């Protein structure tokens, strides 16, 4: 238990980060050149970290599985990025952004980390504008803002519906500048396979060149993991096809603790599932809830008729519509946090009021907004989203309401890190969605971009120096050393084992089956019996996988099936840990909804007396996991039941 030290600096909340920065150790410029840092992942967290560490003068090696760093899935974030600028004069402040984030996370995040996030949020906007990110502006030339779920102020900066793209390309530009300068070396299409630990410290990684199949060894004085979330454990999610949890699982097996693995965000506004051939789900930005109104019919007969195409949604009269979010949560209406909106949609559909062919959809209607603001205003705000919807669904959302349903989107859980973003393995840092740190049990919209860039531009460049200052005498270690050889052999053995199975079922067969188990029992509603069942089913499926998966070709060439199998093998273990964590947490909080624990009105019922802690799991080998607890103490805010009514 002594290993779980959060290292949050002393003093008042608003002085902690300043205190840290003025008391930490730094590395002088001459020594920076002698220190190597590996960054895995090139998204907002990884790309920004690699660029910033390169700017400081460290030698950075930056890896991604895609063909270019610009493809990382941060690019798909649509709606925006929060910052406490208070440009709108609507009462925003660093404290309020901090408070909204802690409350939105249902009081399961660390105060010190979240306050720092809110504090550096303003620097991010300054930095991005300086980089040439074309944020939306008003006619006077100043930056525009929009509102997002879980907040009563307009603090979200955006670039049409492509904010993630623009921020990522900003980080990619800075990264490219460092590549040109020679401080960063890029390794695209090269995937991490294992972490190498020497004398208890992270000292490098084993990678696989995805084009040639060769395994490579890379040394560094510190390793930074920024590989995003593990939502693809559900098979169907809004993540990219290649997004995976393998780097996290590798370092977990090497001793990093896994924090709150069961905290998954189900996003309320996604395009509903339409067939079993479906490969992924598409998100419709939460910003749409600014102007769209969510409803289902009041009468089951109408829902039935809509499902069978006997009625058009526009034929349902105003008084026959149930705007259930506005009804249940008058204060926040359609802008309640994501977990609340998702559960409310599920509740209506489970009760028989769902629409769409499958009955698993609700309407998101823009008729009011188009009437109020005109079609062109709506087009300006959401044009590309409407186009995307029309291409996928083949219906015009300007004329008919959109149909949406919740889908897996983000994982708040991740590797446990301290205030310095270091895991329980010295020298192994984890940033962005890959760590557990800032969003508690539920993330508010427009906060993922904020956290990724905060970690990458403004936190790790400081905190990593505190660690590296004691490494300046460590000479570069040869990758011929036995620890590298042993890790390399372990990786090769595993790949050979996968190739040698030569079974009958494809990797996707297994992944889809795992996804169905996860969605059914470890999804939006969880209960003890279901979770126990899921654990058993996943164990059986895992066994079957290692006996019957079929991978064609060889491991010494480009082999997309082997890449997938390697990732699914890890998901088959991670999924079980998620179920175990959900089973342990006998309360409902944020995105984790245990059906046994709810109020009379169907809201999440937290148990602060027993579960106000971070569940940090330690790998014990052989499929065993041990639970450690970091108790969350709230010194500065009062913990309340969330109320969006």
């Amino acid at each position: 238990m002594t290993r779980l030290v959060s290292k949050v600096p002393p003093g008042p909340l608003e002085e902690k980060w300043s205190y840290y920065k003025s008391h930490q150790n730094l590395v002088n410029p001459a020594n920076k050149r002698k220190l190597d840092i590996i960054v895995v992942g090139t998204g907002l967290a990884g790309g920004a970290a690699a660029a910033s560490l390169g700017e400081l003068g460290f030698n950075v090696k930056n890896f991604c599985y895609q063909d270019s760093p610009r493809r990382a899935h941060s690019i798909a974030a649509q709606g925006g990025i929060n910052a406490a600028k208070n440009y709108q004069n609507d009462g925003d402040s660093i404290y309020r952004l901090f408070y909204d984030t802690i409350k939105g996370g249902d009081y399961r995040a660390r105060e010190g980390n979240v306050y720092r996030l809110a504090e550096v949020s303003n620097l991010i906007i300054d930095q991005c504008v300086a980089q040439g990110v074309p944020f939306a502006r008003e006619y006077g030339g100043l930056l525009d803002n929009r509102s997002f779920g879980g907040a009563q102020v307009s603090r979200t900066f955006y670039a049409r519906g492509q904010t993630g793209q623009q921020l990522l390309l900003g980080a990619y530009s800075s990264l490219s500048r460092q590549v040109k300068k020679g401080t960063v070396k890029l390794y695209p299409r090269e995937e991490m396979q294992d972490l190498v630990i020497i004398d208890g410290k992270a000292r490098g990684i084993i990678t696989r060149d995805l084009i040639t199949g060769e395994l490579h060894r890379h040394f560094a004085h510190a390793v930074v993991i920024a590989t995003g979330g593990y939502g693809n454990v559900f098979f169907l999610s809004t993540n990219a096809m290649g997004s995976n949890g393998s780097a996290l699982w590798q370092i977990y097996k090497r001793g990093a603790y896994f924090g709150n693995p069961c905290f998954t965000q189900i996003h309320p506004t996604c395009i509903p599932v339409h067939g079993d051939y479906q490969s992924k789900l598409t998100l419709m930005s939460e910003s749409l809830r600014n102007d769209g109104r969510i409803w289902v019919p009041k009468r089951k007969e109408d829902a039935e008729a809509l499902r069978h195409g006997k009625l058009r949604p526009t034929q349902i009269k105003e008084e026959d519509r149930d705007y259930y979010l506005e009804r249940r949560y008058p204060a926040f209406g359609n802008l309640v946090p994501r977990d609340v909106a998702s559960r409310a949609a599920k509740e209506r559909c489970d009760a028989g009021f769902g629409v769409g062919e499958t009955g698993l959809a609700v309407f998101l209607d823009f008729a009011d907004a188009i009437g109020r603001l005109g079609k062109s205003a709506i087009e300006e705000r959401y044009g590309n989203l409407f186009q995307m919807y029309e291409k996928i669904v083949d219906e015009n959302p300007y004329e008919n309401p959109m149909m949406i349903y919740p889908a897996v989107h983000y994982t708040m859980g991740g590797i446990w890190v301290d205030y310095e973003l270091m895991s329980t393995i010295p020298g192994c840092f984890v940033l962005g969605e890959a760590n557990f740190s800032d969003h508690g049990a539920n993330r508010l919209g427009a906060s993922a971009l904020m956290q990724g860039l905060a970690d990458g531009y403004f936190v790790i460049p400081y905190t990593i120096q505190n660690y590296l200052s004691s490494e300046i005498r460590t000479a570069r270690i040869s990758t011929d050393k036995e620890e590298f050889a042993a890790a390399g052999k372990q990786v090769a053995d595993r790949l050979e084992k996968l190739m040698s199975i030569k079974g009958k079922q494809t990797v996707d067969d297994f992944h889809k089956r795992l996804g169905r188990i996860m969605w059914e029992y470890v999804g939006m509603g969880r209960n003890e019996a279901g979770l126990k069942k899921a654990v058993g089913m996943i164990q059986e499926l895992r066994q079957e996988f290692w006996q019957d998966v079929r991978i064609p070709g060889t491991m010494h060439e480009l082999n997309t099936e082997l890449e997938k199998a390697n990732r699914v093998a890890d998901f088959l273990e991670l999924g079980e840990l998620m179920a175990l964590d959900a089973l342990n947490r006998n309360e409902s909080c944020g995105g984790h909804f245990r059906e046994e624990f709810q109020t009379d009105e169907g809201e999440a019922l937290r148990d602060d007396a027993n579960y106000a802690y971070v569940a940090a799991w330690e790998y014990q080998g052989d499929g065993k996991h041990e639970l450690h607890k970091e108790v969350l103490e709230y010194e500065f805010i009062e913990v309340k039941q969330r109320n969006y009514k």
Partner: protein
Amino acid sequence: MDLKLKIWRQKNAKSGGRFEKYQVKGISPNCSFLEMLDILNEQLVRSGQEPVAFDHDCREGICGMCSLYINGKPHGPDKAITTCQLHMRKFKDGDTITIEPWRSRAFPVIRDLMVDRYAFDRIIQAGGYISVNAGGAQDANAMPVPKYQADLSMDAAACIGCGACVAACKNASAMLFVSAKVSQFALLPQGRPEAVERVRNMVKSMDEAGFGNCTNTGACEAECPKEIKLTNIARLNREFFNSKVCAETRKAAVFAG
């Protein structure tokens, strides 16, 4: 619907390639094009053959990883979308669909339908950025930018770097890609201080990579999934011309001083 597929297969960059014929049956019109290829690949793996390798990732039209030359058009027959957003309802039962990789000397084939687009990264590394380190920026609202200018900059910045412009061009020119990045920064006050060096270095890198020249056919604009405008190429040309003039003037100023 049932479809016949003619797909380019190539083991690696060094080996030769050829078209192979395949059939897929019972494809739903709501299926996306890449999901149709998933179905084909599942079929191939089950029958002991190697799947068709193709690039893809986000599958929502923004990462720029997917490519494919479908029936002679980059990203297929539909307008203003990437291959991953193309749906099978755009085809008819019984159609034969020909699928090839991007064709350009600067984008060598890696395997089957995958190509190497690192030349694009190199062009950005040559100058596709504003030189600002993390931490030193002034307040974001200290420098107002006229809305129409910011909007034009955003139009250009929407480029996803997929390479369809190169694939569509008979000269395999990368001018639309380069002009989009040059324009994004040229239109913003933050981008002006380095405008001269940026355009010269990016154009130099583009030429070195072996991309062809622009002859204003407009095929790139017609096929661009993000509808990047040809006017950006005009702006690129002007910026490039200016950079030559400016450089001469600057030199003259130095000598005179």
